[in-house]
């Protein structure tokens, strides 16, 4: 049974078909890459999946339930979390508060207890603090918990964004170009981190990436998107040799 099943998904902006007839199937525990040239529609797919855009046609089933037409926060509550291509942290909040915001949906105390600082407020806050610190430790950000998020170096901001997404306790993690702007060493570390969180949290991951070393290194199966349609799919080795993919990336061979 697939965890996520996308069938005949299309999205048009006016006359422009950004995504057409997309079919993607992801099984529990897989690590899938979604690649394609600039403007192929990869981020649009993420935005439709997470409810930022509404689809024009097609169906999306996540854990046996239809997820089309849901608001982004409802999608997250169903167990799908994402990071963004251009980092979107809560810049003026501390590192730990960034993570705590993600724990909010599972908060145990009401706004009423918050107003009057009832015992449940202290219990809830302590529990949240503890969980957030544990998570930050996993992502090696615990020493910077009180730092303002915008003051972190770029690589750590990326890590924090992933940590924050993990705090929502997702079944499926969507990573939008996690290695963008990283140097080769940071990319290596990121690959290790992605593999590790997948094992540790029994996670399914779908990632968009431009860095071929990373995609070929960690993904088990790859979908290639061009002009809004899937032009190839398969294991990294097959994809590397696929003439359609080479054509999309390098242009047609001139004889």
């Amino acid at each position: 049974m697939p965890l996520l099943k996308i069938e005949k998904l299309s999205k048009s902006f006016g006359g422009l078909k950004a995504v057409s007839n997309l079919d993607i199937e992801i099984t529990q525990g897989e690590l899938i890459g979604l690649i394609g040239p600039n403007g192929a529609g990869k981020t649009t797919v993420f935005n439709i999946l997470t409810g930022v855009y509404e689809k024009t046609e097609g169906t999306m089933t996540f854990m046996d339930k239809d997820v089309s037409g849901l608001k982004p926060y409802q999608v997250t509550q169903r167990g799908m979390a994402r990071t963004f291509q251009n980092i979107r942290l809560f810049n003026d909040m501390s590192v730990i508060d960034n993570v705590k915001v993600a724990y909010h949906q599972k908060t145990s105390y009401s706004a009423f207890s918050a107003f009057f600082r009832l015992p449940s407020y202290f219990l809830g806050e302590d529990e949240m603090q503890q969980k957030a610190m544990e998570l930050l430790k996993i992502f090696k950000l615990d020493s910077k918990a009180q730092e303002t998020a915008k003051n972190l170096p770029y690589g750590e901001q990326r890590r924090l964004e992933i940590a924050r997404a993990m705090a929502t306790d997702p079944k499926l993690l969507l990573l939008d170009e996690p290695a963008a702007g990283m140097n080769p060493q940071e990319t290596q570390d990121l690959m290790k981190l992605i593999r590790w969180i997948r094992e540790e949290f029994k996670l399914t991951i779908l990632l968009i990436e431009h860095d071929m070393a990373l995609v070929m290194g960690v993904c088990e199966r790859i979908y290639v998107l061009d002009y809004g349609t899937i032009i190839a799919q398969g294991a990294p080795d097959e994809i590397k040799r696929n003439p359609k993919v080479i054509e999309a990336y390098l242009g047609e061979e001139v004889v």
Partner: protein
Amino acid sequence: MRNWFNRKNIVSLLAIVLLYAVVQGLIVFDIMPAFYKLTLILICIYIILSTSLNLINGVTGQFSIGHAGFMAVGAYVSAMVTVLMHGPLLLGLLAGAAVAGLAGLLVGLPTLRLNGDYLAIATLGFGEIVRIIFLNMDIVGGAAGFTLPSKITWTWAFILMVVSVVLIKNFVSSTHGRACISIRENEIAAESMGINTTKYKVMAFTIGAAFAGLAGGIYANYMYIIQPGTFSFLKSFDILVMVVLGGLGSISGGIVGAIVYTLISALLAGIPAWRLVITAVFLVVMMIFRPTGIMGTKEFSLGFLRKKGEKNAASKN
């Protein structure tokens, strides 16, 4: 386990009680001139107004400029309860706050789908609608105003101000408050972290409106007379100026802004012709040299009062 009784809270409480006692003493022994007393009570009212507007504008990042409208709702409703229905003062104040909160909910639901300039204009419009409704209601005196006895004392004003600030601060430093801040910081990211942004915008707006209603009630029951003209958009701007002056998003900033702005107005009361000019120049200078407001986003901190062990634990956490 943490609770209310830590050193910080006890010291704050002592300072608050001391401040109250000093002023109350000056009033009881008739040392304080009436004008000073008026100014102090106005400061209490404006602190509630600026703190509650700060919750909407500074903390949640929704630009509302209709706060005088909610203040008017609270003022008139509490006046109706205490005068027309002969209800007790506290009931009047709570009714004013409740109805203003309800108005906030009703206005917030449709308008908070707007953002930025559009929301500002919608809330401005709401404030004017409220004023015109009361202007045309004969039961509350129309343009001539509604007279009522002055029942609010320094004790009332001060206690209600402290309670309001504590409640709003508690909300802001809870997970619900963090949800509001995350909306200000990045609405798309907040939504994708599972925050129902519409719910929290409306919640902040409703809470802010309710406290504005409470402040309106205190104002009405102190001033002997309320007139619709008092609650024009100029009043909304006054409150907004206090928030921006003190520092958007900082609770202490809202308090400082309310105190500074009310004191400036009081000091210049002797030269009414120059009052607005001097205030305006002050604001322009302020915005050039410190655009983030007096406090920026910082809060007053009593961190130095923590025991050494607590401090280390806090920095580790």
